[in-house]
Structures are given as structure tokens and as C-alpha cells.
């Protein structure tokens, strides 16, 4: 079990974990925007930078992103050194220039003492912070329907050719995970629309309720090796079936214990 020192505290980290997990284990909060337990670490937001050194390095240290740096025995970590705080401020300053109206960024920047960006404010404010959570969660689901496109200032998250993505099944995982609510969708009992693609909802043949799209059912059926009809009955009707089974197995219902 690697033993490391974080902000003066001795921490026993688990093998194969990353520095961010060790910091949290020690109760030390490191800000991050692109980390999520459901997806692989990405190192996209650069907010979780920390200073890493070793006693034998003669005072030299290196800056790493905690979410991608594997724990090592004997390292000494400083999560709030001057250099680290300065770097975080630059990152937030840049993010604030890109997303000047996004509450998440404004609050985080304000917490680091930045009220207004020192760079040129984005003339077309956006809520997308390019954390990549949506594309990674789409990869995790197995669709990879969206990705980051273009480079530099023009970089954005979009489906291929900015057209309705053929691979998308309308699961909404990208919109649900988006920390700023940038990804828009419409969802009703009959229809769902996301990434400018329209989906028919899979409606329960008995009661008409719906939770997932027909495309989702097809995808789940293919992955799970079960017929699509497996997903058609909604949870309400499945519970009614279970209740009926339980009642049948229990035989004729007994006289109620309580009267009136």
C-alpha cells in the first residue's frame, strides 16, 4: 500500500489509484470539473493540478493533474502551493472568458478570487466548458455518437458532420451528466429529441407510459441478448404482474385483519 504525504498528512492510498482519490481519502478537497466516478479520468479541465516532489529531489517539484497521476510510495504532495493556486486561477480565468455567464464557472472562479476575466470575453457566451463528460459517458454507454470537433477557439462538442448522429439511441446520458446543462433535449411520453435527432418512445402496450426510446430498447436487446419485448412492459405494469403472482401463490386472500 503506497504511503504518501499530502499537505503534511500521511495517507495510505490503494494500489492502482490516482492522486485525486488519495487526496479525497485524506479529506483534502481538490477542485475538478471533468472528473466523474462513472467514466475514465481525462485530465481535461486542469483544475486538479498539484505539486509533487520527493525528499531526494533537492527542492525540485513537478506539477501534475491529480486525476491522472498514479499514486507512488514516498511522494510529497502540495495541493495548495503558490504555483498551484496561480495555475488554477489562470485556468478559471480562461474558462470564465469562454463561459462568462455560466453559474458553475462564475462561482468557482469567485471562490478563487476571480470576479471578471482578464482575457477577452467570449463574444458568443456558451455554457459548454469542454469537460468531455458527455463524450466519455457516450463512449461508456457504447455508442460514441458525439465527440469533440475542431481545435482551438472553435472546439466544440458535436455529432459527426454536425448532423443528427446515426449512433445515438437517445439515452440522454450526455445531457444528464452535463454539469452546466448545456446539452438541450425535449422528452415526452411519445417523442424525444436530442442532437436534432427525433426518437419514438417505447410505450408500454398496456398503459402507455414510457421511459426509454425504441432505439434504446433495440440497443439494450442486442447487448443483453434478450428480445426487445423484454423492455416493452413498463415498471408499473411489471409490479402489477409481480403482485398478481404473489397473490396467486398466497392463495385466496385472508380476511383483512382490521375492520373499518
Amino acid at each position: 500500500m503506497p504511503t504518501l504525504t499530502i499537505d503534511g498528512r500521511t495517507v495510505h492510498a490503494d494500489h492502482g489509484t490516482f492522486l485525486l482519490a488519495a487526496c479525497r481519502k485524506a479529506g483534502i478537497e481538490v477542485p475538478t470539473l471533468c472528473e466523474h466516478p462513472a467514466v475514465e479520468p481525462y485530465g481535461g479541465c486542469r483544475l486538479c493540478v498539484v505539486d509533487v516532489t520527493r525528499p531526494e529531489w533537492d527542492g525540485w517539484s513537478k506539477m501534475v493533474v491529480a486525476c491522472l497521476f498514479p499514486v507512488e510510495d514516498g511522494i510529497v504532495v502540495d495541493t495548495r502551493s503558490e504555483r498551484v493556486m496561480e495555475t488554477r486561477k489562470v485556468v478559471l480565468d480562461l474558462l470564465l472568458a469562454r463561459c462568462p455567464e455560466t453559474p458553475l464557472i462564475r462561482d468557482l472562479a469567485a471562490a478563487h478570487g476571480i470576479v471578471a476575466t482578464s482575457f477577452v470575453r467570449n463574444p458568443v457566451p456558451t455554457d459548454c466548458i469542454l469537460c468531455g463528460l458527455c463524450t466519455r459517458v457516450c463512449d461508456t454507454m457504447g455508442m460514441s455518437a458525439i465527440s469533440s470537433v475542431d481545435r482551438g477557439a472553435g472546439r466544440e462538442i458535436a455529432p459527426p458532420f454536425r448532423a443528427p448522429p446515426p449512433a445515438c439511441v437517445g439515452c440522454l446520458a450526455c445531457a444528464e451528466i452535463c454539469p452546466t446543462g448545456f446539452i438541450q433535449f425535449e422528452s415526452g411520453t411519445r417523442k424525444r429529441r436530442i442532437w436534432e435527432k427525433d426518437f419514438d418512445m417505447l410505450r408500454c402496450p398496456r398503459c402507455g407510459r414510457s421511459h426509454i426510446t425504441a432505439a434504446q430498447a433495440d440497443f439494450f436487446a442486442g447487448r443483453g441478448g434478450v428480445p426487445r419485448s423484454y423492455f416493452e412492459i413498463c415498471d408499473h405494469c411489471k409490479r402489477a404482474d409481480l403482485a398478481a403472482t404473489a397473490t396467486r401463490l398466497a392463495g385466496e386472500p385472508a380476511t383483512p385483519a382490521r375492520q373499518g
Partner: protein
Amino acid sequence: MDRIYCVIPERCIACGKCELACAFAHGSEGQPAATRIHIHRRGPDLGTPVVCLQCDDPSCLAACPVGALTWNARTAAIEVSRETCIRCRMCVAACPFGNMTWDDSRHEVAKCDLCGGDPRCVPFCPTKALDYVPADRAAILPDAAVPGAQR
């Protein structure tokens, strides 16, 4: 796992106290719709409580693409991690018994987690249709008294 959650449907009088207790215990401020135990009502005083069976080979757990559902070895309950869940609702579609529900107001999936080993519905059940009994007692019960009792 030294206790087993036991449902005896023929004792249920459909009073709805378990649903309210569940809704309160899970922080919905008592909106009955947010319950994870559902009484399937067959008459004014007759119901069948339907709640997660905590399956041995759970479809919800198999369907989850991110491992947000885990088996709690102490309570034998399958629990959802709110932090890890990506709200894809695959588990809702996968559960063959409809005991994985989507809570639209709180925007998360909800299932019975046995309240971490102290199911809050049990003390509120006036007829002991719901019980959390030592495993050795529950193993004898289904023999004569309660065919069809859950677990």
C-alpha cells in the same frame, strides 16, 4: 446478512403507511409517489406490497454500464450510487419486476436499499405484513405460513 426482509401479502391491509415511511426515509418530504415500496391495491382493505426482491442474479446490476449498482454484503441489498449513476435508466428497463423506478422530480433512479439494514417501512406496518426477521426464522416461515413470501 443475518436478517431477511419478508413480505406476507395476505396480511396487507393497504393502509399505505409503508409507502409514506419509505418516502420520508428517502428524503422526499413524504410525497407518497416517491416511495420504493408499492402497494398493489385490490380493494379498500386489501393489497399486495411490491418491493425489490434483492435478486441473487440481478438484471439491474448486470445492465448498469458504469457499475453504479453494487451488492451490499452486510445487508444483501443492491444499492445505487447517486454519484456514479449516469441516469441512463437501463436498470429501470432491465428489472423484470418493475422494482427499479425513475423518480422524475429528483431526477434519479430509486430502489429499495433496505435503508442500510434498518428498513423504515417495517415498524410502520400495523399488521406485520412487512418484517425484517433473522435469517434462520425466515427460512422456516415459507414452509407453511407464507408461500410466496419474498425471500
